[in-house]
């Protein structure tokens, strides 16, 4: 799976969970500051991403996922 495909998958989740427009999602965007995803919604995003990509994202890893790119890198490695 390419980084673009993972980004697109995350964008679909962000739209579903937090109403973030797909056009706004890019690797350099911060979840909380740029995309306005609050901490509870971030929990939902993580769980949905685990399901979608069949990976495990440990709770203590979540705090390191500041940007979309951070999440893409983590998922890419975990796949």
């Amino acid at each position, binding site marked *: 799976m390419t980084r673009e495909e993972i980004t697109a998958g995350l964008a679909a989740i962000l739209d579903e969970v*937090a109403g973030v427009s797909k056009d706004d999602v890019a690797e350099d965007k911060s979840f909380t500051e740029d995309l306005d995803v609050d901490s509870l919604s971030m929990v*939902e995003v993580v*769980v949905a991403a685990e399901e979608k990509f069949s990976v495990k994202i440990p709770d203590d890893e979540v705090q390191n996922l500041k940007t979309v790119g951070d999440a893409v890198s983590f998922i890419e490695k975990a796949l």
Partner: protein
Amino acid sequence: MSTHEVVVTGLGATTPLGGDVASTWEAMLAGRSGVGVLTQEWAEQLPARIAAELAVEPSEVMDRVRLRRLDRSEAIALIAANEAWADAGLVDGGSDPERLAVSLGSGIGGLQTLLHQDDILEASGPRRVSPHTVPMLMPNGPAAHVGITLNAQAGVHAMASACATGAEAVAWGLDMIRAGRADIVVAGGTEAVIHPLPLAGFATMRAMSTRNDEPQRASRPWDKGRDGFVLGEGAGVMVLERADHAAARGARVYARLAGAGMTSDAFDIVQPHPDGVGAAKAIAKALADADIAAVDVAHVNAHATSTPIGDMIEIKALRRTLGSHPVLTATKSMTGHLLGAAGALESIATILAIRDSIVPPTINLDDPDDGLDLDVAAHTARRLDIPAALNNSFGFGGHNVALLFTRA
């Protein structure tokens, strides 16, 4: 007792008859039933497969992402509260947040969230449970969301008195304004529990109609053929306001909330007292509180849920306290029983009856019970001059609430 007069300046509702007050009222006056057959697969095994579902789904009027974080009972409370707020002319200002309160309850609360998340817990484990679960299921959730949305800082209160909840929330709002704790109180009730569990529970206690073949004829208060209530869902909210506050901002006034009476049966957890003692005392207290003579009460929107026992006990209580002159109606014949929202929605119907000088009909009253010796507006709406009207609500637990509204 303080001398603050309290008036109603805004109304909001989403019900089985319509997505707002105007459409609900129009359907009520036309005698339309909001009851239908439950077509969901889960309903197949239930003894009662009928209910009065919302006429307008929340998803038609509310943002998808917002809805994900709200229990259905919270979403519809917000829809009704926003309508009432706009109707009161308060959207562009006119209220001081520190003098604005909310009094809004639910009979059962966020049950659909609770059960849905329990399904997820069982099927997929604790990590899959939504982080929004607790604020979605807590019983103060609807009141709190309304308070946050309208910026109410004088207190947010969530009544819980089963089917008397909506009326008790209104009575509490009256008290708050009289006591000087708020200038405006957004008050009402909400309920959304059309789900197999409560339907099964009400059915095994033999409280529900099983007239599955004739859904629109199933809710038939005071009729000999009545066999239980029909579950409904919806929300009703009103803006209560100190009369001089409303006058100062030039607000349109629907009616005056002149008084309230509340008692508790202290008798049984589900059965009403057989002589309606608590109900009669609540009515008498409302009359005294409003300083209104029984003879001036021209109309009663009764609790009358279509259960064999409860309907006639209320008749006894009404005859004893008011006499035989008021024109009664049971709008649950059309809306079904909205449990914690019933008292709020029926108060709205009572207020509009006063405003429009018309009593909405009690449909399905084809063969009146032998004990029904009071005048009911059966089948069709009836023109009537209404200087004062009463709304009754009674709830499991023995809660009795009577609200008295008068012409502004």
